[in-house]
């Protein structure tokens, strides 16, 4: 690329409380170029994208547009400077028509009234420019995903954007729609528009990209010409996160089958997922955000209904699954979002611990406060829960302690099967190691554990076996001995691996 870059970002650094999200990242974009941004979950892609779109402010670093240093304090300001962004979740108003959505916030006026005629002619021109045959009077809600995306593109172009940021634009599209999108992208390139393209699909790098930049853990790993890099090289750049602590594992022979899942399907999020978990093993479930892991866990637990497929627990087929039925069968779910799903924040630690076991502990319905205290005190000791009192409201406990409370809740029901969804996310290092220790203890005592994690070292360090999910399916099973970060990422991103 010989052109003067449209955009030049240097040494962009951004911290969130407790996390260094971006650490001195460089990024360029030339006119008429598609620059792919690649990285694992949590690598910093979204943060960088939001900084370039004015949604976040960098703590350090400079951004220049066409050679001029700029400050983009708000998304609106970024828009005025010619940066348009299309988020994965569209920002369209469903019950307004296409033209109104394109001109949202900048409606043309005539004599103080909305100038519908101008709005429609201008929208028509923009959509024609994209070669899109969409009725400007159609309500957005009546359009398909691909068409809505084009409305977003038209909206971005209507403010004369020179830079377009697209966040996983193909995630919800069919193959035919992807072809159309790529054709549109080529047209935009010819108009000299630079495109920052974020994707989780490795094959798209070569299909649509000119250059590719890889981030890992907020660090800039490198920028390459797409024509001079292979997929395997890209994977090697993305992974290679160092394993920072030893994982406490005692392996033992597989026990009996605890959970068997065949062909679970639900809408577009689950498309026939299958897996098995045995007593005495930790099964890791890897995959990218949006691959359907949490959805699978919730479906197994009966929290969400599924249209097709079957779940067996200890060999018994489960009919009409619901959380209370699964709990009776000995299953417990530790959800990713403890605050909204795992705990009742306005209740005390003690009340949360016994909530799922009231029927077992107090079959005569009357809660015996003394007995409750004894039971809870036991778990506070066993799990080393740091709290001044069992009556402390859980909202005042730290993340790691809250996770221990959720675990205590399931120990209290005498669960035999534990589903951990991101068990150590947002938890400090010390508590993390403790949670890992407890998981090891659980399987030693014969429990079956299914662990969803986006933290590859955790997946590799804790699991007996690893399943990889992609687009609603379990696409691979990898035994512990053969598991490498590269292999898991390759499966998760849909790259073919030789066994």
């Amino acid at each position, binding site marked *: 690329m010989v052109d003067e870059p449209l955009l030049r970002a240097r040494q962009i650094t951004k911290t969130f409380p407790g996390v260094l999200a971006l650490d001195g990242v460089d990024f360029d974009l030339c006119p008429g170029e598609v620059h792919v941004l690649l990285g694992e979950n949590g690598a910093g892609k979204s943060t960088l994208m939001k900084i370039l779109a004015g949604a976040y402010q960098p703590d350090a670093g400079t951004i220049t547009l066409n050679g001029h240093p700029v400050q983009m304090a708000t998304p609106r300001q970024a828009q005025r400077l010619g940066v348009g962004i299309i988020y994965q979740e569209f920002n369209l108003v469903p019950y307004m028509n296409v033209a109104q959505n394109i001109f949202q916030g900048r409606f043309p006026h005539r004599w103080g009234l909305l100038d519908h005629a101008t709005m429609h002619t201008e929208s028509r021109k923009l959509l024609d420019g994209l070669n899109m045959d969409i009725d400007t009077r159609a309500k957005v809600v009546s359009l398909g995903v691909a068409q809505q995306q084009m409305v977003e593109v038209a909206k971005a172009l209507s403010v004369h954007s020179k830079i377009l940021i697209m966040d996983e634009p193909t995630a919800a599209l069919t193959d035919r729609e992807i072809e159309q999108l790529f054709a549109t992208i080529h047209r935009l390139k010819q108009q000299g528009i630079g495109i920052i393209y974020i994707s989780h699909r490795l094959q798209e790098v070569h299909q649509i990209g000119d250059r590719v930049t890889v981030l890992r853990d907020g660090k800039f790993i490198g920028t390459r010409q797409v024509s001079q890099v292979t997929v395997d090289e890209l994977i090697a750049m993305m992974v290679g996160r160092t394993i920072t602590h030893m994982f406490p594992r005692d392996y033992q022979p597989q026990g009996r089958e605890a959970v068997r899942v065949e062909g679970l399907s639900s809408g577009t999020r689950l498309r026939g997922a299958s897996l098995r978990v045995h007593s005495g093993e930790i099964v890791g479930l890897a995959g990218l955000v949006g691959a359907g892991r949490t959805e699978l866990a919730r479906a197994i637990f009966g929290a969400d209904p599924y249209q097709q497929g079957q779940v067996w627990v200890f060999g018994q087929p489960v009919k009409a699954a619901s959380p209370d039925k699964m709990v009776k069968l000995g299953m417990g779910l530790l959800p990713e979002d403890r605050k909204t799903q795992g705990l009742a924040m*306005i209740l005390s630690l003690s009340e949360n611990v016994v909530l799922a076991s009231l029927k077992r502990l107090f079959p005569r319905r009357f809660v015996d406060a003394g007995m409750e205290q004894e039971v809870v005190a036991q778990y506070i000791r066993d799990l080393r829960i740091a709290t001044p009192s069992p009556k402390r409201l859980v909202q005042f406990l730290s*993340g790691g302690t809250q996770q221990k409370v959720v675990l205590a809740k399931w120990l209290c029901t005498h669960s035999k099967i534990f589903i951990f969804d991101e068990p150590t996310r947002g938890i400090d290092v010390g508590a993390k190691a403790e949670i890992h220790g407890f998981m090891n203890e659980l399987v030693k005592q014969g429990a079956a554990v299914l662990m969803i994690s986006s933290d590859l070292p955790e997946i590799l360090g804790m699991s007996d076996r690893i399943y990889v999910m992609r687009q609603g399916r379990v696409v691979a099973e990898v035994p512990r001995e053969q598991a490498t970060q590269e292999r898991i990422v390759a499966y998760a991103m849909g790259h073919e691996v030789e066994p």
Partner: protein
Amino acid sequence: MTDGGVAKSIRPESERPAARAKLPPVAWVVLFMIAFFGVTAPGFFTVGNFLNIMLQGSVLLIMGVAATFVILTEGIDLSLGSVLTLAGVTAVLVLQGGQSVPVAVLVGILTGAACGAVTGGLITVGKLPPFIASLGMMGIAAGFALVLTRQGAIYSDVPAFIFLGEGSLGILPMPTVVAVLVFAVGWVGLYQTDFGRYIISIGGNEAGTRLSGVNTAWWKFLTYVAAGALAALGGVIMAARLGAADPIVGNGWEFDAIAATILGGTSFEKGNGTLGGTVLGVLLISILRNGLNVVGVGAMWQPALIGLVIIAAIVFDVLLKQRGVIQ
């Protein structure tokens, strides 16, 4: 992020700030009103008048317990007033049909439980918002009451029935005895049984409670059934006091019940609140009504004044919370 967790956890807060608070602001308002009426109205500080207040507050307390249970689940039941009316009507009709008083009381209560079951079913199985489901039931119950009474009051003077409303146990009026029993059972149910735990937990985090394996739909359904049955009990007592079932007697009672609950510090969000607070809310409304009567403010002006005091008390409460004076 876990930041702030430690800082928060060492803050010396009471273990359950809102729910097990010291003296809620509404208690001060109640004390202030007692003092105010005591000074301005000569007849206020008499045993007779206090018994009067208790009698007048009895049905409201029963209704308040019902409303508190529902609101603790983050729900609302607008049909409580109409259910009160309808239950009085069915009870009196059964008496007129020559049945015994226990049968009449039972039929009245079952009428309310059935209404609550329909409301609860619409909410849990039909997935209707509580506001809509109970609004519908409000109309249906009121309509049935009109149809069954042919739009006029129906009477019964069976002595055993009248005793429920007019009689007394020692010095205490019967309605007050029933109300105190209802409160006691409600308190034990809420704080000493799994049902109560589930109600509070559902209000605090319904999704999380369901994921704990609690059949939240069932317990919510039961809450509406219980609320309907309690409102019906209130209706039966009301009919016993009047010796008649009037087809519009319960109009507006749902609002008094909800107002008493809210005044008592129960929040529409997150199932935060106490049954004890509701007693204070009931006292506030009852004392205000009684005091206005004793002072000689006419019935015409009372609703407006009561509305004013309710708003003032809640603004007072909100202001205190904003200033951080109370949790």
